């Protein structure tokens, strides 16, 4: 890695950016929509309750799955772009 320290740094920054963005969504759906912002979503009805309840019991779990697969897919692309992937 010594000869490519500039690229290595860029690779790590790209990873951190991706993680940061993912964790914002992670926090928004669970701590945001499902808990703290639930009163704001109370006006959106869904099957006998409101959208906040849906996020608390289903929506956040579905979002978590999408986040992990998106991260894995993007990171594998970034690995290849910077040539740090495994053969």
């Amino acid at each position, binding site marked *: 890695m010594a000869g490519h320290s500039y690229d290595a740094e860029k690779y790590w920054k790209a990873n951190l950016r991706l993680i940061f963005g993912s964790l914002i969504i992670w926090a928004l759906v669970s701590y945001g929509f499902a808990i703290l912002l639930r009163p704001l979503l109370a006006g959106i009805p869904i099957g006998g309750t409101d959208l906040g309840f849906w996020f*608390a019991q289903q929506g956040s779990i579905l979002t978590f799955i999408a986040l*992990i697969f998106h991260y894995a897919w993007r990171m594998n692309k970034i690995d290849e772009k910077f040539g740090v992937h495994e053969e």
Partner: protein
Amino acid sequence: MSQFAINILFVGGSFLLYIGIAIWAKAGSTKDFYVAGGGVHPVTNGMAIGADWMSAASFISMAGLIAAGGYANSSFLMGWTGGYVLLAMLLAPYLRKFGKFTVPEFIGDRFYSKNARLVAVICLIVASVTYVIGQMAGAGVAFSRFLEVDATLGLIIAAIVVFVYAVLGGMKGITYTQVAQYCVLITAYTIPAVFISLQLTGNPLPPLGLFSTHIDSGMPILDKLNQVITDLGFNEYTADIDNKLNMVLFTLSLMIGTAGLPHVIIRFFTVPKVADARWSAGWALVFIALLYLTAPAVASMARLNLMTTIYPDGTAAEPIEYDARPAWIRDWEVTGLIQFSDKNEDGRIQLYNDTAEFEPQAQARGWEGNELVVNRDILVLANPEIANLPGWVIGLIAAGGLAAALSTAAGLLLAISSAVSHDLIKGSINPAISEKGELLAARISMAVAIVVATYLGANPPGFAAQVVALAFGIAAASLFPALMMGIFSKRVNNTGAIAGMLSGLTFTLVYIFVYKGWLFIPGTANLPDTPENWVLGISPLSIGAVGAVVNFAVAFVVSNVTEEPPVEIQELVESVRYPRGAGQAQDH
């Protein structure tokens, strides 16, 4: 065929399958034993993680907790799944690249300190042993109910089965057995849920059924449930809560604790490549979500079914007579998990929430107190019987509950035995031990751990719920921050990491002990464990997240006033960040 024979058939058949797999996948080397040879496919691994993670708590208890608490207990759903996002992005790929066998090994190498490794071993053993006790106790309960044997005998059968496949097979045996156990447990969980969802809403998919229309009343099922339970003095099922800070911190503690629990982390050491570690986390969550998306539907539908069983003509009419109670109530009364006392001596079962606000209504109806106490842990196990499902579904639930308890027990036992044989014996006491000797030590320590866990499972210390909180608190406040800082910071050094782990751990333990009693000894609590006494309304169950913050803060401050880690450690941190070369690393 009698119900007993059906149960024997399902449970016995599934056990034969697990043991057969263990013999087929017998471990030959330490690498086979600890990380299944490092060659497990991500989807297979995801399924094994699913079985490993979903314990008796997820399978048996969680739906009951949600049924009782409604929206307020959604923390369990989000907390026990959201941790996988943290694992996938913050820990798993880098620890896989590091390429060693255990969690304390990483902490010891990264913080170039045997003491750090020792602190990690202690945290790991305390967190894992407390967890195993719960699994063994859960297996005992399921056995005694379904095989109609004594709880102690049930426990001993469970211990023998775990012993055979965990001790012989190691991680290799456990991984493939857990794949089979996942299939058994998810089938067992979803089939009754599908039937019940069809009965109540006509929708075969329980997660959609939860938001569908209740056939009998024509109302959305959640509205119907709210109406029935508020008629009986309970809180609305979907009601929002006031103490949001506590809900946020509780959810966060469960998430961080999930990511920090060692038996889940070591699972990511078993895949061939760093990229596979990322995919594994995704697949694990898919398999876990199949159960976690079904659970809230099971919770609300079972609660509604229970209420309509007791009040068949609606809440305005009188409840059923005790003598006309269904067979399942009779069966569970034998175990003591359902209790009835006819307080107003009218021969009927009055089930309601006897609070001061509801008192005038209860008096007007001649009710003198709630008469039926239902242990919430039986909800999932009794669910098929409540809904009048055929006998084979009940046999399936028995096999599923046992699969959940045994797969988690095996994973935890492996984490404990590798900490003892690899980190304690090879790492500290006798570094010159041969591979054969290490394998023998691993098997002996696993056997000892099973005996201890079985003994404690038969004589549970009586504080199961607190102990689970402790396990999560420890993992969240000690292991997770140390692992994360080890990867994301080059500046955190040995002194900082040890100070951080110890202060996070101490802070969390003290807060729990102040409310729950020192070492959980009854009568030694300094303050009553009620919301009015909690600091800022933070419950002892939620304190792990704050402990983690304390750990991070102390580690950064101490590291910044002491010297930088040596160059070779900074290079180690650099190397775990880049996937290339993980293949070589695993053959250390």
